[in-house]
């Protein structure tokens, strides 16, 4: 009896010390996701098709990072690799210093949430129910929402300013509103990392800007790291903290102003009709 009690006490103590160290480590280390010389691409019929090599990407807390590149350059492949859906051909992706391929699905869902481009299947889900599904990694076997879960959902709706839509069906709202709802769902999932695939496509200028500003606000206020792919380069230059730029030659990650002074944007599109004006930070078409 005594022995088991002592063991129990020590176990708790060990756990406590371990947890403290973990917290200490987390506050000093802002890096959430990193890659070590990965090469990405596809493996089929015994052959490797390499899309990009020697990628070193580092994503830190509280930063809004845009991924840009021409169509077909491999943005989706890179995102699929960073989210662990696809294995890199060589090298590893590390999430909180653990190889992402070693994560259990549930543990991964508590670290990383996604906003995808695919259309939602037809259903009767209300906005509230849709966002509440983001709590699934935390709910019990039947998915019952605790008061804490409901608070998180309400917080997510408040941050994205869609509280008034809560009881609407998800097919009754506009595309711009739906995009915010999907972002709120990712927020409700309460993960340090959110990855979005082209969240501003199909939106008009007004809603593009509002999604960009929302993402920036969320990254800075909640301390999450937000990575998203986009084709709105001028907005990305003005509104993000860092840009990952994919060209046929290299993949670079840096602050927008540094990338401009290095002339990286000029190599983005291999077309004589599109030139980059590095003083204005804008593309010219002639």
């Amino acid at each position, binding site marked *: 009896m005594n022995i088991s009690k002592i063991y129990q006490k020590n176990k708790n103590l060990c756990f406590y010390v371990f947890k403290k160290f973990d917290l200490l480590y987390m506050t000093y280390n802002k890096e959430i996701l990193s890659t070590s010389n990965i090469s990405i691409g596809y493996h089929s019929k015994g052959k490797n098709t390499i899309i990009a090599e020697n990628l070193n990407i580092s994503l830190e807390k509280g930063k809004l990072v845009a991924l840009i590149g021409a169509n077909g350059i491999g943005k989706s492949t890179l995102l699929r690799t960073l*989210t662990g*859906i696809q294995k890199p051909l060589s090298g590893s992706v590390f999430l909180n210093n653990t190889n992402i391929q070693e994560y259990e*699905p*549930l*543990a*991964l*869902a*508590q670290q*990383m*949430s*996604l906003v*995808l481009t*695919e259309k*939602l*299947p*037809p*259903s*009767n*889900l209300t906005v509230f*129910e*849709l966002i509440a*599904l*983001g709590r*699934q*990694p935390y*709910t019990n*076997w*039947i*998915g*019952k929402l605790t008061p804490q879960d409901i608070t998180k959902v309400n917080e997510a709706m408040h941050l994205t300013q869609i509280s008034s839509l809560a009881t609407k069906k998800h*097919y009754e709202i506009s595309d711009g509103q739906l995009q915010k709802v999907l972002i709120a769902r990712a927020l409700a*999932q309460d993960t340090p990392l959110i990855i979005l695939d082209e969240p501003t496509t199909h939106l008009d200028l007004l809603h593009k800007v509002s999604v960009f500003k929302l993402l920036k606000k969320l990254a800075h206020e909640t301390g999450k790291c937000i990575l998203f792919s986009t084709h709105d380069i001028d907005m990305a230059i003005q509104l993000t903290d860092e840009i990952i730029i994919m060209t046929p030659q290299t993949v670079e990650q840096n602050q927008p102003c540094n990338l401009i002074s290095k002339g990286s944007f000029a190599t983005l599109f291999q077309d004589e009709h599109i030139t980059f004006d590095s003083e204005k930070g804008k593309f010219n078409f002639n």
Partner: protein
Amino acid sequence: MQNSKRNNTLFLVLTLLLLFLFLLNISLGSVAIPIKEVFKSLIGENLSKETWQYIILNYRLPKAITAVLVGMGLSISGLLMQTLFRNPLAGPYVLGLSSGSSLGVAFVVLGAGLLPEFATSLLLSSYGIVLASCLGSFLVLLAVLFVSHRLRDTMAILIVGLMFGSFTSAIVGVLTYFSTAEQLQKFTFWSLGNIGNLSWTSISILSISVFVGLLLSLFSIKPLNALLLGENYAKSLGLNYSKSRLIILFATSILAGSITAFAGPIAFVGLAVPHIAKLAFQTSNHTVLFWSTLLFGAIIMLICDIFSHFPGSDLILPINAITSIIGAPIVIWLLIRKQKMMG
């Protein structure tokens, strides 16, 4: 919050309706027994007429229980399929499970002449038919699992289900050439569906199978809700997709296979009832849909059975005709009325 109040009222009404219909189903038939007497008999009191007691215990009660089990099981298997395949028209039929059962039974009943004497008598017993049916639906399940593993495409699985339907009817067509009129009659009666002739042993086997199927479905509620966002979102929410899909497919095949074995292929219940539940409760949340589909399934099957027994006469119509007459227009009406609701 207003919604949950409305739901609770609906659940209460449906439960009371189910209890009432259960008693009504027992009381109606070629010999009408007053509902009061039915109630007395069920709580163990003696009845004024001994024949009534006999009729209730040996005919009416087994039939009513079978109707409830069949209605619940088929409806839930339909609900599981519709969410898993993101297809409002999915059901045990579309997946080909019922076709597989039919094929098994057709081989035993129609192909019996091709087998040696002793095997024939063994297979043509009611147990032989049950076994053949379960085996048929299980083989289709294995085929579907194989295809789904290979293709990872939900539309392809549905097409495979349709192909099984065509395949079955073609084989049955061929078998009819080799069978006697008597065999053909037996198969035709089975395929029309019958929930009236089950022994208590059969009912207990059916109950256990349906219970297992429903229990597996209950544990699939959370994955089903995640699947409302599509496969990729569900995976990003930590869902073990292949495991959940396997459980859902198993639940469906146990429900559809055992029910088809005992009661014949019963059409439209699996397809129509989930839609009625979705329409009544205006939700896609499977926690609500599970219970409402259970209740609606039992209620509708009891109603269909009451109609098939043509109150006050000896005439018994095939249950399959009734479910199709009621079910088919409901599905068409649903499709026209609200495209978006389906799901």
